[in-house]
């Protein structure tokens, strides 16, 4: 009987309804941040199941700066925007590039980093990378990204293999399912080229900057439209951590170049 009661109370407790979260005061004392862990070294999962990486550190630094109590909410990349707009969290710190399409469904902070994209493939397989040399070849790129759009618009005679996560670009490449990968120049090189599987691969052609920070591109923090008080706080915090060296400390922890891109 007792066991039955416990089971029943467990059942009730788990549905006992949607925990009501206090209405968000304009002060933003509590913020929920959407993050993911598929983009080393920007975001990854440690052996303890906890997330870490450049994005996670930046999110925590911003929260510390605006004195908010932040909860990191894990969300797969494909559901980021819907979850933001369903108020599952208040901002996205997940290496999201600022694009005109995304600006229609969310507001973005100033860019917090900006790195060019790079081609990656078998060493010496191509001298130059352009629409002619890639004709009939298969390009691997992450879907729902400016890179995917770029490839689909400029390489109409090439096949495109769209993958769900950035880490899969190099996985698919190593598995031989495409001829060339197009990804972030740092994430692609840092993780893959240094690993044993990355042997025999290298960057091909010149890096490409897609809508850099100066043209309103780069990578930003997404927030729901109209949350202007949060947007102002985040932008101010970004300025402060860049000025006081916190940003540089985080940057140097992961990269040997400055990726701030201002």
């Amino acid at each position, binding site marked *: 009987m007792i066991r039955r009661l416990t*089971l029943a109370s*467990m*059942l009730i407790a*788990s*549905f006992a309804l*949607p*925990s*009501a*979260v*206090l*209405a*968000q005061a304009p002060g933003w004392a509590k913020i929920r941040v959407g993050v993911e*862990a*598929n*983009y*080393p070294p920007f975001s*990854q*999962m*440690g*052996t*303890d*199941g906890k997330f870490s990486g450049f994005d996670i550190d930046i999110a925590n630094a911003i929260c510390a700066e605006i004195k908010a109590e932040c909860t990191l*909410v*894990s*969300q*797969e990349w*494909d*559901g980021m925007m*819907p*979850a933001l*707009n*369903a*108020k*599952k969290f208040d901002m996205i710190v997940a290496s999201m590039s600022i694009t005109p399409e995304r600006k229609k469904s969310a507001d973005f902070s100033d860019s917090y980093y900006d790195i060019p994209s790079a081609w990656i493939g078998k060493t010496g397989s191509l001298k130059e990378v352009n629409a002619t040399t890639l004709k009939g070849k298969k390009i691997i790129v992450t879907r729902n990204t400016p890179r995917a759009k770029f490839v689909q618009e400029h390489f109409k005679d090439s096949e495109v293999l769209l993958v769900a*996560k950035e*880490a*899969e670009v*190099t*996985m698919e490449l190593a598995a031989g399912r495409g001829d060339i990968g197009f990804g972030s120049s740092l994430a692609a090189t840092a*993780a*893959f080229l240094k*690993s044993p*599987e990355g042997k025999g691969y290298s960057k091909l052609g010149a890096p490409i900057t897609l809508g850099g920070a100066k043209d309103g591109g780069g990578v930003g923090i997404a927030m729901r439209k109209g949350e202007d008080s949060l947007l102002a706080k985040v932008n101010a915090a970004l300025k402060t951590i860049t000025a006081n060296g916190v940003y540089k400390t985080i940057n140097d922890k992961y990269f040997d170049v400055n990726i701030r891109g201002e």
Partner: protein
Amino acid sequence: MVLYGYLPAILEGLVLTLQVSALSLAIACVFGLIGASAKLSASRAARWSAEVYTTVIRGMPELVLMLLIFYGGQIGINMLAESQGWPYIDVPPFAAGVLTIGFIFGAYLTETFRGAILAVPKGQAEAGLAFAMSRTTVMRRIVLPQMVRHAIPGFANNWLIMIKASALVSIIGLDDMVHRAGLAAATTRAPFTFYMAVAMIYLTLTSVSIFLLSRLEARYSLGVKRVDF
């Protein structure tokens, strides 16, 4: 290092997978029994609603239903809360996931239970009624114990499918075993290792389930002679 040191993280995910599966099963059984009774009831309204339930739910992909309930439901609740001036109400992913999976598999179990109830000879229930038992007593003491034997094979099938379908909850932000394995694979770039490990864990879970359910079936088949063709 076992699995690059990610074994504890994967096992934590396994706990969530088991919780989701077990609670979903409990809910699915409730929906299944209600659905089966409705389908066999004398009331036309009950029969029709059960028919709509099984037709619609069995006809839609689990993934689509899950997204509809989790995101669509949340947006609906937000709109309601705003119009009433309530604070933001969060639909917890765990409850949403368990309810959705339970609701979906309840539709399959409805059919399993309905078939099993029909397989109990009518004379049994009639005899119970002749002894002045109430309808609920007949159901509880005569029909249900005898229908279990017929229900187990279909029930086992549904349970096996459900354990694996529980991986769907990862799309709504729950950190189950498959999600953990996916992240570990992305971090270490060793997909084969992690997905193989997860496949083995699922295989162990299902094998144990099959063994236990066959013992249960044997228990409920006492007094029934096995026919060999």
